[in-house]
């Protein structure tokens, strides 16, 4: 029965992980889509800047932006809760990957569609929203699902900035009680549940976009 109480004690930590993971996933989709939309501008300078951003964030580990935000922002007068700092760092990095995924999905769409849509009088925004995005979604969804799974696993790094999420909780229990394996089994199971939920969400989304 003590084991059952131990499982229950993870509830708060699991909720934290879910909230952080969900927020980071949603905002990184928005940020990644924004970055991708910027690259569609006719001026080359925009896509060069976004390209540099993507290269930088793809080639540094997420702990670096994480520490940058968490330790750096208080120095310029922004004192945010650790969880918010963590989400921001995750979104900054994840956005780079999302925009890359969207870019490679967009390659599959013929350019002539843009000319056709423009010539029947759609605004550039309408072309992006109603012609590009629905088609890109179909190609990009599986990759976005995988990337979201990686994101959920990266939320465990927020334990490095003292956010009590599932991994931090496991660590606290191990150091407090001396039982080594059980907390890790529980934590792993919780992450697997979260990952399973994401797979289901993306499978459902995939079914929705396929018919359009």
């Amino acid at each position, binding site marked *: 029965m003590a084991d059952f109480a131990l499982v229950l004690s993870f509830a708060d930590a699991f909720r934290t992980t879910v909230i952080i993971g969900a927020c980071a996933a949603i905002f990184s989709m928005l940020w990644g889509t924004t970055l991708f939309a910027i690259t569609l501008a006719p001026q080359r300078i925009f896509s060069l800047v976004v390209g540099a951003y993507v*290269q930088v964030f*793809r*080639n540094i580990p997420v702990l670096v932006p994480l520490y940058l935000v968490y330790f750096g922002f208080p*120095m310029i007068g922004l004192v945010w809760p650790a969880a918010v700092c963590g989400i921001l760092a995750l979104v900054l990095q994840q956005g780079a990957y999302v925009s890359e995924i969207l870019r490679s999905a967009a390659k599959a769409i013929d350019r002539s569609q843009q000319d056709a849509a423009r010539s029947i009088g759609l605004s550039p925004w309408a072309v992006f929203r109603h012609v590009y995005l629905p088609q890109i979604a179909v190609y990009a969804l599986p990759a976005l699902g995988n990337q979201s799974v990686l994101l959920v696993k990266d939320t465990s790094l927020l334990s490095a900035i003292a956010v009590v999420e599932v991994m931090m909780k496991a660590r606290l229990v191990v150091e407090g009680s001396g039982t080594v394996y059980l907390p890790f089994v529980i934590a792993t199971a919780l992450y*697997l549940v979260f990952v399973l939920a994401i797979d289901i969400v993306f499978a459902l989304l995939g079914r929705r976009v396929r018919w359009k």
Partner: protein
Amino acid sequence: MTQNDLIMLVRATLSTLYLAAGTIPCATALAALLVLLAISRHRALRWTYAGLRWLVRGTPLALLALLIYYALAGNGIAVPPVVAGILVLAIYFSILFAEVIRGALLAIPRTATDSALSLGLPRMATLTRVILPMLLRQGLPAYINVCVMAIKGSSVLSIIGVWELTYASREIIERNLEVFQVLSVAAVLYFLICFGADRCGRWAEARLARRGYQTQR
């Protein structure tokens, strides 16, 4: 930031490279064994592989690092942090490398083996002169990708006290509070390693392409 701090960061970078250099060969060797499970004739072995893949897909690297750290400490096994770190990374990334190899293997048509054997090529030569070159050209881009992931993953080891670039950065920050300077230098160093590894991969692909092993992207 003093000159000493800068030297410390460069030394920490060498430590990161050292971890990567230890991890990638070990993980690749483990991956080769895992692939044998994946393509085995026995269903139980294939399921074992699928289970491992599923487990690693859903488990954060940091969690595995902590588990191994506590398991080693709890059983009184004293190993240097670097060895523990390489162990963690090798276990975690071996399954990712195995997926790369498996994916590349699936892309090679069965007929390639059959025709090589029917031309009278010995089994060993079929493997080394027909299958392996094709595997290389199929798998290299994804392989380099996982290598870069492994280098970035080594930063996670800082939470179990392995002294490498991220750990050293945090150490310096906690001493002199120059967050932006120190982390900018760390970011540049990481970028140089990972971007460099990526470019080396591209260069190898280009070389293979010149010899007729065109990579398909």
